[in-house]
């Protein structure tokens, strides 16, 4: 076999073509059972597209909701099954001919993504918040996303009671990509997973029912910047291939470590060239840091978070962050352990500016969604502090933080959907004045989420922050801990400001009303509060879980 196998799954056919010509097809070996979580979601997404095509308009919403919930639940059950039969620990290995890792971190993060997605899908399906349009109950999504905002076609669609039930298949495709992202074990799979979850998310951002122009603008911004960062990532992958002669994580790691000396003739000029490695890795890291929203690659976050339909924002803020940090962890711990001394200073810098930048800029925000966007940037910085620890403790602390953070985020955005005035959601902070007087319960729940964001003890936010800071301190990043603590203090200021506004300010006469949600959003918020408190008071079980899951397979 003289030709170099670029990648065993993607290029089996090319590699195995016999020299004499003729096609000898060799089927790739795929461990279907181990990939079942992803496969279930992809299958359901395909089915959902068919539902969209064949089920009558009236029944679509229920069919889609049912299908999504069942698929996510089934995928989660598959994850639990895999974990129970030891794939997270002893039987962890690399499936699908090297493309997908089935190991502790992958299963833990996939489980987190699925649970967060389930809750997010509930908020997608909420139909009691917006006032009925022409006798039809409507959700947060445009009646006809293709109609120009303000046009006759749009009015007709609203009048006919259309709804964009396509959001469910889109969400399912996105979830499939998100599941594959942290499990990707070679750079091509990484890139494909990235595109699979990014494209549906771009679309989902564009389909808000209210403030449609803003929503479309957000989607275009997200798409353009996202495409740009994908290009960086892809270019980085090409350079790394030139360096290592492979896109497989394990093989790249071997070349980095110097254990592989074999040089393929086709790449003799470039292989082992450190410049390629460093530039390529820098480009790949840029692509990933864009997805986690780290400074200086964060510019899209506030605009997209603000413009996207709020349920989508919550989904995106939680699930994307989990998946992207998973991918980042795997890349740094599996591919680049030999390069720790090179990437650490850079990531230190990124973490510091991310923590401080997110927290400081958030102070000046006047829109609750933008405020939460900057807060998510600051939290990205805290998580990076755990990533940088470069110890097993660092991995498990990041896993735990992501679990804690995603439920607080979805819950917080779900609360944002409840506070409404005539123009839809009232996201300007001035409108939240006196909310505590008018709706003590909603304000109290939101206060719990804000306190968790601020990292006050007895909430999940504190346990998570403590875990990552502890890991960072033990990993020798004491300075990061001090910066993290200082930016927590800054961040506390604006979370507290919102609490002050809600409880201690006089309500305005034309203030917003709090819509009474259906059981769907109530569940989403209730789960958020429950997870926040349980992870704050009794985190041991989940820390154990994260600890067991904290080892990457190579």
């Amino acid at each position: 076999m003289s030709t170099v196998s670029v990648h065993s799954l993607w290029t089996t056919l090319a590699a195995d073509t016999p020299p004499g010509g003729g096609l000898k097809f060799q089927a790739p070996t795929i461990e279907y059972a181990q990939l079942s979580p992803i496969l279930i979601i992809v299958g359901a997404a395909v089915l959902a597209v068919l539902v969209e095509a064949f089920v009558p308009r009236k029944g679509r919403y229920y069919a889609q909701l049912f299908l999504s919930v069942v698929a996510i639940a089934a995928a989660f059950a598959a994850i639990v099954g895999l974990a129970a039969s030891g794939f997270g620990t002893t039987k962890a290995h690399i499936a699908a001919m090297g493309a997908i890792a089935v190991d502790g971190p992958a299963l833990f993060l996939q489980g987190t993504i699925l649970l967060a997605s389930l809750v997010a899908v509930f908020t997608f399906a909420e139909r009691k918040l917006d006032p009925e349009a022409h006798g039809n109950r409507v959700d947060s999504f445009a009646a006809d996303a293709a109609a120009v905002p303000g046009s006759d076609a749009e009015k007709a669609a609203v009048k006919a009671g259309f709804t964009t039930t396509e959001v469910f298949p889109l969400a399912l495709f996105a979830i499939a990509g998100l599941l594959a992202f942290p499990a990707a074990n070679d750079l091509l799979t990484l890139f494909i997973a990235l595109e699979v979850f990014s494209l549906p998310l771009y679309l989902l951002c564009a389909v808000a029912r209210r403030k449609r122009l803003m929503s479309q603008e957000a989607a275009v911004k997200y798409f353009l910047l996202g495409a740009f960062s994908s290009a960086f990532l892809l270019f980085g992958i090409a350079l790394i291939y030139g360096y290592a002669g492979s896109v497989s994580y394990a093989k790249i790691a071997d070349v980095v470590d110097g254990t592989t000396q074999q040089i393929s003739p086709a790449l003799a000029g470039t292989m082992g060239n450190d410049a390629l490695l460093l530039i390529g890795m820098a480009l790949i890291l840029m692509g990933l840091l864009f997805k986690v929203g780290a400074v200086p690659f964060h510019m899209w976050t506030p605009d997209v978070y603000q413009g996207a339909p709020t349920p989508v924002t919550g989904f995106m803020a939680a699930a994307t962050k989990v998946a992207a940090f998973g991918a980042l962890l795997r890349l740094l711990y599996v591919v680049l352990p030999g390069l720790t001394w090179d990437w650490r200073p850079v990531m230190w810098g990124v973490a510091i500016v991310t923590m401080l930048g997110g927290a400081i800029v958030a102070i000046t925000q006047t829109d609750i969604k933008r405020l939460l966007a900057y807060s998510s940037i600051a939290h990205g910085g805290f998580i990076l502090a755990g990533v940088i620890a470069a110890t097993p403790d660092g991995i498990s602390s990041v896993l735990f933080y992501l679990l804690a953070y995603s439920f607080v985020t979805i819950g917080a955005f779900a609360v944002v959907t409840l506070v409404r005035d005539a123009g839809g959601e009232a996201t300007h902070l001035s409108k939240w004045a006196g909310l505590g007087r008018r709706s003590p319960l909603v304000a109290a729940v939101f206060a719990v989420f804000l306190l968790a964001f601020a990292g006050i003890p007895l909430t999940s936010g504190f346990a998570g922050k403590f875990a990552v800071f502890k890991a960072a301190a033990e990993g020798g990043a004491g300075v990061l801990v001090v910066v993290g603590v200082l930016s927590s203090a800054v961040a506390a200021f604006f979370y507290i400001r919102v609490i002050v506004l809600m409880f201690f300010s006089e309500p305005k006469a034309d203030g917003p009303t709090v819509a009474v949600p259906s059981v769907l959003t109530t569940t989403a918020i209730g789960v958020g509060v429950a997870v926040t408190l349980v992870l704050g008071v009794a985190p041991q079980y989940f820390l154990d879980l994260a600890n067991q899951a904290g080892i990457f397979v190579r």
Partner: protein
Amino acid sequence: MSFPLLTATAVLPAAGAILTAAVPAARRTAAKWLALLFSLGTLVLAAVVLVRFEPNGDRYQLTESHTWIKDFGVHYELGVDGIGVALIALTALLIPFVIVAGWKDADPLETKDNKRWRPTQGFFALILMVEAMVIISFEATDVFLFYIFFEAMLIPMYFLIGGFGDRAHSGTDEAAATQRSYAAVKFLLYNLVGGLIMLAAVIGLYTVTGTFSLSEIAELRANGGLEMSTNVERLLFLGFFFAFAVKAPLWPLHTWLPNAMGEATAPVAVLITAVVDKVGTFAMLRFCLQLFPEASKWATPAILVLALISIVYGALLAVGQRDIKRLVAYASISHFGFIILGIFAMTSQGQSGATLYMVNHGISTAALMLVAGFLISRRGSRLIADYGGVQKVAPVLAGTFLIGGLATLSLPGLAPFVSEFLVLVGVFAAYPVVGIIATSGIVLAALYVLVLYQRTMTGPVKAEVSGMKDLKARELTVVVPLIVLLIGLGVFPKPLTDIVNPAVTHTMHDVNKQDPKPEVEAAK
């Protein structure tokens, strides 16, 4: 397993808080009685702790220990020494008075044209919540456990300050609300920043020791298994001390206290200064000295200077105040200076004096502040200039106010005298010059208390004061027991010193210090 008495002492008020909050909005009075009942129950439990505690027994008694978060090395470890017992007793004792004194502070606001609902239940629930968290902080022998409640108690405190302000305000309602939320935010941010800096030090401590348990750390130290370089110890000490100095509050980190005490209702002001702030000084004794003995000694000169500045500066500013509640706040800053001085004098008189001071200051400030609150609620103003001649129309009020004031200036015969004297003796033995300067605080205290009394209570009766009613039965039930205690502990402080002294011996041992030998000139 024996009955977890210490847990119960903290759980009872917490349960009370939840039940009180759950009382339906219409049954306001029932909620108040329920809260009072739970606070009295806590007092009973605290009394049991006091009785079961053996002053000359082990250092930490009634201990409980369970693993809580194994991963962080966190234990649910409780135990009390004499200092803790005294402060738990103080807390449990003061809360019922705070509740009775604040009986009507959270009732709906009735103005000319409308009646505004206020979360009355919430007020009492929050007070009980603070009590629970303060008590567990006094009991925790695990650094992390302590830290959690040290931070978490800020939240209920914050809502108490910001949500239920003093109605006696010279400006408009809106101006009052703005100032109140400013005070609440200032309180929270100061303490949160202090707490977060402490968090960095807590994490640092863990990376050095691998545990949070005081007993395990003490064991490590005894075995020589603790490797803490001088610099690390000093940095960690500073992290802890900063948080406690904000809480205590020590100059120059004190500026949140006058705002918070001025804007909060009088009972909440008492809660801040008499109960919550004591956690700061208590923690200096328990954590700073015990965990970082060498660094504590290293920092002593600087801390003594800061404490002296607190004493003199607080007293001077108290003299210049026009607002009764802010005057008491600055007086408290001066008194906290004495407490910190006593702790860091590193003599046994100084430290037991400081502990007594914490208890006595709690009682005397409660007496003065609560009577001041009754006075202010009658006239609707906090400004000293708005009063005059009150002793002619409300003699009992004026008399109790005077006793509270005299206790604040440490008149012999009242409890604070004993503690202030002990602190000064302890300081003088080690640092004579510091002791002499600190004495000036007493002189200034006489000035601000007596001038306050003279301006408000004596002289011609002002027109607005002429119809003032004297103390009612509810108010008397608050004031009389406090005064009895002040006199009782002033004449016979032995029961308290007996409990505190053995504990102080332990802290002295922690820092490896002995009292300076008295030097007597040999007889010729």
